[in-house]
């Protein structure tokens, strides 16, 4: 392996990428926009814009009292409450979308008497319904349980690591960061290497004393540099929240997602970087099987989406069907997500066995992929 030739390769790869504006945007801006959007959706989704219609089957003083209490509790939780004239009116309000959920109080509703309150949703979006049901049930419990004459125990939540965070983004942030780095580094390397193959420059490069090992090393180092920058920028964006005070009519804003990290950001950086180095080789390897850039993109549903589903990014690994559980062990992304959660939430450092295992696997995967990429650089060629 000649350091000079590797240096020439690294320089070439970086110069090419530096001049490629759309790819730079893909690498540096897209993950920031997407993670920002994701955070915004998660943090601000529930509560405030829930529109609730209350309809009472009966008309006695008990019904009036309870629906009054309920109104107060729901409004207090930030929901918009309307009183519907009848159960049918509430039903059509949910149907036409003017209410997102209806609370139907039974005619026989009275203190000390077991009766059923019905919650009515549209049913087109089960997961959205579930979120609303939880929010509304919470408010019902808080608002009217005592007036029903039953003192319900209240629930408290504690966690072994960290505190039960009120930030819904906290468990997702590490996973999302890892996924997007993996995704964009793969895409960029895959397309670049495909161009190398189809543009005839690889054939030409192989007609020089440059070795396959030097090519893979050059790519890993060159793209690794950009991956490093990307990970640094993305992690900084995820972890900081710089307050910008209100200026004139503009409200104050925070730049950055401000996600709490209990452990070392540097260790998190290293984990994501290892994952990214594996993605470089994966891109080289998969470009063997593609003839066009579109085909590199077509590998995404085959290779990246299963990783996304099976690595605990959105769906907890423990909640996966048991037939799918063994597959998790073959997902490089799963190890990164696990290590990052340990670091972010538990505050784990290198002395934690789980983190050691994750890092060892990620390193082994990076080396394995590099070896496979090396093998596939020239299939016909020696």
């Amino acid at each position, binding site marked *: 392996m*000649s350091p*000079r*030739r590797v*240096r*020439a390769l690294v*320089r*070439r790869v970086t*110069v*090419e990428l530096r*001049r*490629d504006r759309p790819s730079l945007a893909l690498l540096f801006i897209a993950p920031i926009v997407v993670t920002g959007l994701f955070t915004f959706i998660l943090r601000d989704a529930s509560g405030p814009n829930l529109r609730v219609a209350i309809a009472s089957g009966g008309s006695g003083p008990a019904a009036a009292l309870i629906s009054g209490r309920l109104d107060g509790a729901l409004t207090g939780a930030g929901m918009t409450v309307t009183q519907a004239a009848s159960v049918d009116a509430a039903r059509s309000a949910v149907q036409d979308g003017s209410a997102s959920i209806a609370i139907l109080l039974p005619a026989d509703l009275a203190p000390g008497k077991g009766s059923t309150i019905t919650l009515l949703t549209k049913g087109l979006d089960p997961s959205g319904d579930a979120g609303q049901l939880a929010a509304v049930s919470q408010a019902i419990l808080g608002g009217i349980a005592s007036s029903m004459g039953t003192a319900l125990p209240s629930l408290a939540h504690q966690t072994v690591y960290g505190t039960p965070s009120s930030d819904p983004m906290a468990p997702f942030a590490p996973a999302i960061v890892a996924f997007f780095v993996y995704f964009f580094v793969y895409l960029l390397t895959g397309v670049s290497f495909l161009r190398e193959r189809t*543009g*005839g*420059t690889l*054939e*030409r*490069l*192989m*007609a*020089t*004393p*440059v*070795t396959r090992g030097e090519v893979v090393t050059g790519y890993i180092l060159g793209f690794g540099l950009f991956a490093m920058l990307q990970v640094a920028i993305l992690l900084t964006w995820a972890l900081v929240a710089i307050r910008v005070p209100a200026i004139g009519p503009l409200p104050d804003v925070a730049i950055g997602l401000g996600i709490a990290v209990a452990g070392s950001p540097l260790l998190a950086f290293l984990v994501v970087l290892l994952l990214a180095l594996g993605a470089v080789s994966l891109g080289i390897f998969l470009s063997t099987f593609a003839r066009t850039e579109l085909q590199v993109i077509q590998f995404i549903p085959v290779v990246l989406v299963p990783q996304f589903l099976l690595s605990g990014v959105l769906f907890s690994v423990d909640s996966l069907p048991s037939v799918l559980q063994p597959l998790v062990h073959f997902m490089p992304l799963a190890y990164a997500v696990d290590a990052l959660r340990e670091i972010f939430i538990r505050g784990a450092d290198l002395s934690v066995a789980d983190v050691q295992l994750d890092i060892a696997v990620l390193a082994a995967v990076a080396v394995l992929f590099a070896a496979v990429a090396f093998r596939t650089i020239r299939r*016909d*060629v*020696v």
Partner: protein
Amino acid sequence: MVNSNPVPPPTPDAGEAAIRAVGLVKRFGPVVAVDGMTFDLAPGRIYGLLGPNGSGKTTLIRLLTGMTRATEGTAHVLGVRMPDRANLARIGYMTQGDGVYPALTAGENAQFFGAAYGVEDAAQVDEALRLVELADRAKTIAGTLSGGQRRRLSLACALVHKPPVLFLDEPTVGVDPLLRVQFWGHFRQLADAGTTIVVSSHVMDEADRCDELLFVRAGKVIARGSGGQLRAEAGTDDLEAAFLRFSGETAVAA
């Protein structure tokens, strides 16, 4: 001089031949791209590989440069059995496609391939660009060069390390007539300085610029000699007709 003499088994320094092929065969599944070629090419001469598309010219060059392994037979360049990575530093290969990096400037391309061949001397890189008259375009992004300019850049990248053996795969395709004349001027200059040059082409009109021609058809060398010799042998003034004559002969012989 049809299908030149059978050659003795090559020794590590294969005599005076710059390039030696012995019983070269390359099959791609059922396709026989190169079907038993044996020849010696002497140093400092320009050889023309002439034959229609698909006759096996590119595959032959890839075998000689060690870019692909022969199914049967051996190839030696400058006495070294190919494939041999270190020997590639003494070989220039201008591929059929341009094979330059469109995002890099002309200068960066030449510099990169120079570095790949172990040339670190900036003056030598400039010299290659000057030779193809691209010195003034050194800072131009290769993707924005005209087709002819890119072809010249491709040539510069193949000879930046001043190789004693140069393979040029259809170097003048898509090149305007004036530039062709310049190219051939360069090739002659290099050959006079001792470079062995193998040029492939599927058109006959450049044939007379070569010292010697190898007619290639269906993976075989069907005739070899200077343009004059081949015309005389075929009894025609037209090389095209000569090629057809030799093709017919082998078809009957086969």
